[in-house]
């Protein structure tokens, strides 16, 4: 990718890093360039290192790499934090006049571009605009037409009045002119624009948008990083479609409210992260035994306990797969890309209602905070299908009444799915409970009925296995000896990592699996490969465990649990060294 540019702005939390990064990312996206952003943030509101990274190219970008071309450093620490990623063509923009930046040494022969950001911002109308001055300077360095910034500035500051917008445009131009006049730059960055139209959104926003598209009308949640954006997205928007967001007093309440709304017939969802999922656990079983369709979204972050709240991890797979006492039929769906966050959310609602079962929608921090460009048609609303399953109303309820005229809400149907009557339906009154019950919802401890109802609920999983396609996405050479499997947000890094591997002569077949349960049977694929490697962001290899269990064979594992997502180049190296190690062990075994 010739014009693949890696850009970052870093400073202290509270410095406006996020919004500045976003302004630049949006400008690039509007200029018809692909964008992939990542954030590095600490769990505090002021102080602490924060960075917003933007990777951009005319071609699609799916991941981050270990390289920085342009760095706007608002603090000295920003330079140190990114030291290893700088190279001799990098340009570091900083304000040398500020006391905090006096002793900066820019490493690896990178160009130090001292721009009096604060002074220029003051000239443009206020020191607060120093970040925008830096954006203007970055435009000059990268040959990116500064007009593209204007619309983003309008979007960001429009609410504050035209004067503010104009001042910001002016600030950007002052940065640009300063660089143009003061430096004779020896770089050949050339960020081209195209005529493409893109939208730029993150995983949480895609989940929220998917929920509305699917007809979700009720959302109850309790704020927690990194799931809060789902709630913030829905607030204000869902109302326009006849829905409501309720901020509950805690997660126990959130899931129970969502359950109540689902019971009343609304498509309903809650979203949280690890600690909140723990609190919700008791209700998982109630959702399943009362056969209520509910979407429970877990945007994973680093655990256990409060762990590292602003860091990446995929450590809750076991929790969503096995969490809760007793045996709970459920589906676990885990989108692997931001666009899938949208589509799998739609699917989660359909699965929940078709099978009257809890559906866990599992995402992760890396996906939640990453923004990526897509052509708008990626989210073609005409493609959205809604399947509400076996809902009965006044016209057909008679078929489901017993000889005494009672509605059989838990009728042990052959496919495991009973009829559903929304409250208010004449003759449909019935009760549902977390207690074991008969077909009418009445408590029972009768051994035959118990077995019948357990089997009935579990049959949903069997039926779904037959009727749905719980498939994977495949990349690379289908006949390669090396099989890599991953889930969640690692797909992008692995896809790009395959390019690095190919350059070094490694042939890889890669399966990205968005269904944790039910999941595709991978035994043939694993059997066909010489080496199978499962890639995931956790320490113990939770997905590798379930695959080993399925295929009855050992698999290799690549685990990362530093709190940072995989880089494409890093992942490629990991695959190589895993192959080298496993070749070693195979030889030993052969001897």
């Amino acid at each position, binding site marked *: 990718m010739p014009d693949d540019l890696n850009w970052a702005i870093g400073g202290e939390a509270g410095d406006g890093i996020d919004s500045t990064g976003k302004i630049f990312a949006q400008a690039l996206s509007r200029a018809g360039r692909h964008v992939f952003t990542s954030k590095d943030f600490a769990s505090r509101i002021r102080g602490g290192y924060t960075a917003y990274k933007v990777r951009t190219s005319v071609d699609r970008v799916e991941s981050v790499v270990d390289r920085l071309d342009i760095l706007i450093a608002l603090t000295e620490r920003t330079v140190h934090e990114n030291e290893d990623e700088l190279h001799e063509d990098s340009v570091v923009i900083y304000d040398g006049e500020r006391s905090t930046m006096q002793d900066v040494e820019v490493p690896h022969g990178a160009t130090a571009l001292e721009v009096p950001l604060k002074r220029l911002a003051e000239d443009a109308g206020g020191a607060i605009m120093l970040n925008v001055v830096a954006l203007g300077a970055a435009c000059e360095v990268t040959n990116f037409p500064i007009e593209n910034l204007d619309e983003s500035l309008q979007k960001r500051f429009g609410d504050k009045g035209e004067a503010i917008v104009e001042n910001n445009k002016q600030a950007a131009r002052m940065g640009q002119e300063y660089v143009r006049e003061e430096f004779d730059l020896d770089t050949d960055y050339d960020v081209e624009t195209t005529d493409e139209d893109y939208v730029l959104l993150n995983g949480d926003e895609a989940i929220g948008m998917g929920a509305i598209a699917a007809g979700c009308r009720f959302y109850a949640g309790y704020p927690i990083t990194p799931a809060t954006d789902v709630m913030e997205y829905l607030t204000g928007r869902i109302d326009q479609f006849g829905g409501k967001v309720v901020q509950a007093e805690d997660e126990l309440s959130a899931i129970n409210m969502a359950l109540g709304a689902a019971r009343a017939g609304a498509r309903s969802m809650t979203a949280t992260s690890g600690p909140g999922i723990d609190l919700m656990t008791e209700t998982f079983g109630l959702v399943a035994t009362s056969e209520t369709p509910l979407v429970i979204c877990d945007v994973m972050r680093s655990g256990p306990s409060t762990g590292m709240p602003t860091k990446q991890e995929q450590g809750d797979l076991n929790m969503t797969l096995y969490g809760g006492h007793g045996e709970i039929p459920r589906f676990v769906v885990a989108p692997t890309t931001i666009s899938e966050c949208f589509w799998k959310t739609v699917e989660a609602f359909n699965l929940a209602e078709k099978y009257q079962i809890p559906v866990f929608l599992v995402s992760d921090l890396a996906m939640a905070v990453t923004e990526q460009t897509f052509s708008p048609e990626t989210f073609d609303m005409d493609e959205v299908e809604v399947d509400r399953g076996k809902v009965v109303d006044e016209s057909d309820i008679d078929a489901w009444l017993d000889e005494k005229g009672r509605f059989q809400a838990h009728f042990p149907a052959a496919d495991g799915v009973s009829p559903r009557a*929304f409250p208010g339906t004449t003759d449909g009154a019935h009760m549902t409970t977390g207690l074991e019950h008969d077909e009418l919802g009445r408590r029972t401890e009768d051994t035959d009925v118990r077995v019948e109802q357990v089997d009935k609920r579990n049959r949903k999983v069997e039926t779904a296995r037959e009727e749905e396609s719980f498939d994977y996405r495949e990349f690379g050479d289908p006949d390669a000896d090396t099989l890599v499997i991953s889930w969640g947000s690692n797909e992008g890094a692995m896809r790009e990592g395959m390019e690095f591997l190919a350059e070094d002569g490694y042939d890889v077949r890669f399966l990205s699996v968005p269904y944790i349960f039910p999941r595709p049977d991978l035994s043939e694929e694993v059997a066909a490969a010489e080496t199978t490697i499962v890639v995931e962001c956790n320490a113990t290899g939770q997905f590798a465990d379930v695959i080993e269990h399925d295929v009855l064979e050992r698999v290799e594992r690549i685990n990362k649990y530093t709190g940072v997502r995989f880089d494409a180049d890093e992942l490629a190296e990991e695959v190589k060294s895993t192959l080298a190690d496993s070749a070693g062990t195979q030889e030993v075994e052969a001897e």
Partner: protein
Amino acid sequence: MSSDIRFTDFKSDKQPTWCPGCGDFGTMNGMMKALAETGNDPDNTFIVAGIGCSGKIGTYMHSYALHGVHGRALPVGIGVKMANPDLEVMVSGGDGDGYSIGAGHFIHAVRRNVDMSYVVMDNRIYGLTKGQASPTSREDFETATTPDGPNQPPVNPKALALAAGATFIAQTFSSNSQRHAEIVQEAIEHDGFGFVNVYSPCVTFNDVDTYDYFRDTIEDVEETDHDRFDREQAKDKILESDKEYMGVLYQDEDSVPFEEREGVEGSMAEIPDGAPEGAMDLVREFY
């Protein structure tokens, strides 16, 4: 809704397994009467119950109902009502369910003021787990888990409710069936969260807070010059420590239910076959 609904229509064909003489029989009968009296029928009524002897009520009544997990009935009720304000929602449970494990939800449900009723069968003991101290047990009430008494004062749920901004606070005694039914009816008719604490004696595990005790001590505020719309008077009655009252202790005439303030208009159950009209605008926002 048909006008010939009788309270027995709210009875299920499941025989209660409550101990003979349990206060919960009277409490439930009053709830059924109140529902029928207010023109509801089983098909538009949703009952949510928690866990405990009291929580079994949903099983013995006939309506749409959900019997949930311990302490979480109120959030379920709120979800039901928000999703379909046309339903009559009644939540019920015990003192342990509502004021111990579910105490957090209680305060917030009061604050939220969703238009539903909450009937708590207060027997000052944990019945279903066979007789441990509950949050309303007396300080010196001896049980297997508190041989010297809980050693802490009981919670005063009506005071909690008042402090949290309740718009309707009432108390009844299950054996005074006529008054109990009337008061529950008022709770249903109230525009907002109608909270009713019912003294509903446990004849098996509580030999202190008995029928006789309540009969001898309880006074009906209707027979005093109590003004239910006066918060100060309500406060005095509620904080009076050695007196038990019955009746509507407080009501806010200007109460506007949460779902109304939030502009929830009708049932959320109906949705289009595909993405809603105008959904593509959601995508364009990200340009």
